[in-house]
């Protein structure tokens, strides 16, 4: 756990009158995939949105790549090297696939070699390059959402349930792309409900409950211990 890319210490986040995160302590190691797990409504999405800055932490601190980002606005965090794929995908439906990708390259023109790598991971994006993103299927939209985060090299990717509601074949494509990203040395903090994907991709894991991290360790340890899964999440992930 030396040299983490991201550290959250005692982070509290509230939305209106609701106190969602109640002291999150989380360490994301540099390189590899960290799974953020837990039942619905325990604060996983809020944690990601707090990290990217859509919701500001009320207290606690966030350190990214050694620098304090607690009070930085969202654009500054993104420019510092954090990519974000929200649960709702956040694609610009009235823009074409091409325009979505051009926007994703915030620091300059799209790198052609990187684009070819993205096309290799997500072939439909090449096919529908000039189509409006709103006309893509659900799986294709998700591909675009992840491709957009991949358009520029990022030190950390925050990805929220990328396989939600997708067909098995598309899930396999997603998992392949994320593995590819991981193999390029990226750090990924991934919220995922699909255990097969979590088990296949995750190097480390953190489990949330009631707005806190209640367990953190190796993904393999969690995957191999049904009793631990039951205790932490009230279910055995192997059943899913």
């Amino acid at each position, binding site marked *: 756990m030396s040299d983490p890319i991201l550290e959250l210490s005692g982070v509290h986040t509230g939305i209106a009158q609701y106190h969602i995160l109640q002291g999150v302590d989380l360490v994301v190691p540099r390189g590899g995939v960290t799974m953020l797990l837990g039942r619905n409504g325990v604060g996983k999405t809020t944690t990601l949105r707090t990290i*990217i*800055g*859509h919701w500001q932490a009320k207290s606690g601190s966030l350190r990214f790549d050694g620098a304090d980002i607690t009070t930085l*606005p*969202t*654009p500054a965090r*993104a*420019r510092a090297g954090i990519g*974000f794929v*929200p649960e709702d995908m*956040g*694609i*610009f*439906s*009235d*823009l074409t696939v*091409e*325009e*979505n*990708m*051009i*926007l*994703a390259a*915030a*620091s300059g*023109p*799209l790198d*052609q070699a990187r*684009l070819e790598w993205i*096309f290799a991971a997500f072939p439909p994006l*090449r*096919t*529908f*390059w*000039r*189509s409006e993103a709103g*006309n*893509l*299927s659900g799986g294709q939209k998700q591909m675009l959402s992840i491709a*957009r985060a991949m358009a520029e090299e990022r030190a950390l990717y925050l990805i929220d349930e990328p396989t939600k509601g997708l067909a098995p074949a598309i899930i396999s494509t997603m998992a392949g792309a994320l593995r590819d990203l991981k193999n390029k040395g990226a750090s990924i903090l991934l919220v995922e409900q699909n255990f097969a994907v979590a088990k296949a991709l995750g190097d480390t894991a953190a489990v949330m409950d009631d707005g806190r991290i209640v367990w953190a360790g190796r993904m393999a340890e969690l995957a191999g211990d049904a009793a631990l899964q039951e205790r932490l999440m009230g279910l055995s992930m192997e059943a899913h």
Partner: protein
Amino acid sequence: MTTAAPDHAPKYAQVSLPDRIGKAMPLLLVPLLVVLGFLSIGSPSSWLTLTVSGLAMGMMIFIMASGLTLVFGLMDVINFGHGAFISVGAYVGISVLLGLESWTGVPSLLLNVAAVIAAVIAAMCVTGALGWGFERVIVRPVYGAHLKQILVTVGGLIVIEQMIHVIWGPDEIYLTRPEMLKGAVTFAGAAIEKYRLLAVVFGLALFVAMRLVLKRTKIGLIVRAGVQNGEMVEALGYRLRLVFIGVFIAGSALAGLGGVMWGLYQEVITAGMGEEMMILVFIVVIIGGLGSVEGAFIGALLVGLLQNYVAFLEPKLALISNIALMTAILMWRPQGMMPVVKAK
């Protein structure tokens, strides 16, 4: 702006034919209204005169409305103070024109156009600067609070109107157009005012320019994307707040430009003219679909044409024609014809 795009074309369309027709329907409304106008009016020359008049009016309303729809779409800000920029633009521009009577009073196209350009530049600079101050002082403290936005921007509108009274006096100001913009040309038996033709050409040019900026430049992409999902634009690293300030300033300057054009159209200006225009401007923004420049353009043409046709056919109904149009369109498409803002 294109990248070295792959040469693959989509293999199949995923949009059904009814979807395509439904999407294109708003584009067909203007020609449909023009044809209905022709059938109802009967006289081709009257119809042509009214159509050009309606298009000119629509173009001027579009110029005033385009900034407002982007401001709403980008930052969810309801700015009732927009009308103040129309009035201030008109007063500044007309003051410049009145000061350049030696240019406007001679039958020289060059001098007349130079005077109008000077008036437009002065109006846009002043209203752009005023918009910048308005955003900083009045709008910024009330982001995210619609009720407060309505209250403070209406307050700002009243203050600016009173400032106009202080600076230019309480009375309306009458003016005459530059010599070369007076009178009409005859075409197919119809008398068409030169100024209306100019307004149509100018409005079209502005619409094309806005579309080019929005479609072909990165800043345009950021604005279009920001209207749809501002959070995501920020998550990609763009400072949307700065973009919004730029759009607010540009929108205010366009309102000022619209004020000058409307003042020259009516040949009289009052401090309350912007406030009066805001009814039409809001109708256009709402029926066009919040955040949509194309929707505002179509909406403005519909409003301009309908008002002119109805005023000719049934003058008593002219006052309610635009409200009826808004009601009909919202019953057909509650989000407006071409909504961009989905939900915030």
